[in-house]
């Protein structure tokens, strides 16, 4: 390893080093914990200096560009030109996971919520069976993105209107009622906070619950 960074550790976060020096610093701190810590402290001071800069707000377009850059393009992946390929992939994945009955429902809902399902197929997701509660419970499962960006609740033979209540780090959130599609009821949500656990209620009584792990 080359010798330690010295004063360049403090100059680096100010943006005043030339490109070669910047690369040298970045290479060095990848290997040297002591200098990485020194640079990290300097970065905090530099970030404080930014506090006195005149404020400027970016356009909303920048947020969309960032999202497009880090999220898989919906329905535009090479070699997967059709929404039905995604549906098939989802179905195979779910059958493989032993979730055949949910697959039928997913196919039924595909036209209405194809964007959401494409997102699901592109994403890595988890699933959990809800634990039955009360004397008249409901069988339900939850599919959810590993990053918590979407949650899909599906209940078999709901036996009445079902309501979903989520527990987040900041408290409870009422996610609203599940939409009945005959023999099943379901709800797709894009929560703003990470959901820790979920309860389904029928007529104000808990009928199923689950804890979500990420």
């Amino acid at each position: 390893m080359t010798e330690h960074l010295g004063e360049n550790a403090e100059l680096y976060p100010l943006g005043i080093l030339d490109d070669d020096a910047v690369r040298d610093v970045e290479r060095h701190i990848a290997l040297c914990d002591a200098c990485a810590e020194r640079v990290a402290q300097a970065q905090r001071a530099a970030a404080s200096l930014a506090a006195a800069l005149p404020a400027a707000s970016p356009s909303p377009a920048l947020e969309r560009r960032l999202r497009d850059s880090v999220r898989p393009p919906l329905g535009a992946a090479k070699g997967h030109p059709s929404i039905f390929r995604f549906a098939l992939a989802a179905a195979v994945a779910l059958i493989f996971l032993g979730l055949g009955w949910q697959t039928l429902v997913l196919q039924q809902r595909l036209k209405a919520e194809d964007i959401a399902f494409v997102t699901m197929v592109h994403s890595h997701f988890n699933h959990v069976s809800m634990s039955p509660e009360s004397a008249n419970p409901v069988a339900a499962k939850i599919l959810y993105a590993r990053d918590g960006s979407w949650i899909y609740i599906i209940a078999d033979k709901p036996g009445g209107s079902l309501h979903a209540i989520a527990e987040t780090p900041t408290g409870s959130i009422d996610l609203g009622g599940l939409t009945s599609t005959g023999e099943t009821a379901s709800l797709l949500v894009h929560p703003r906070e990470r959901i820790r656990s979920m309860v389904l209620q029928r007529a104000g009584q808990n009928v199923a619950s689950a804890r979500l792990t990420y």
Partner: protein
Amino acid sequence: MDELVEAFVARRPSGLEQAYALWSRLFFSVARHAIADSDRAEDCVHDALVRVWRSPNRFSGNREMLKAYLVTCVRNESFTTLRREGRRDARELKTARLAPVTSVDPPVVDPVETQRLQAALGRLPDEQRMALTLAYYGNKTHVEIAQELNVPLGTIKSRISMAMRKLQTDLASAEGTRS
């Protein structure tokens, strides 16, 4: 580990999106201070954040350190862009604000933090404050500062380095007092 940091390091889109939601004005203000053109400043924010997000193994630390790290990346990206375009000179730097302490524009963050910063800057020795101010708010390189102040390059580097370390200590101490 903090959920935001964890998501960022794990390269989850939500990590970048949350970081942007929290600090977008700060990022853009940093880029806009270096680059007069808003569209190009946005390009720099975008490119810096996406590049960092795609190689998060470079980062370890808490939320505040992530913010500081991302601010550094945005600032360095802005100046790299200017250097690449050969424009880190007259036209761009005319927009530099050399006197942030007396600026009438609203600051990026809350007034209390700005006040703490201004007090900390005020406690630096004059020659160190001058060098640091020219570097950060004046967008000047250490070479340019050395020429402008007619002082050896090594001296300028030392002054800036010492100023930064004093600032770290001062702000950390003020933070400790406040919490």
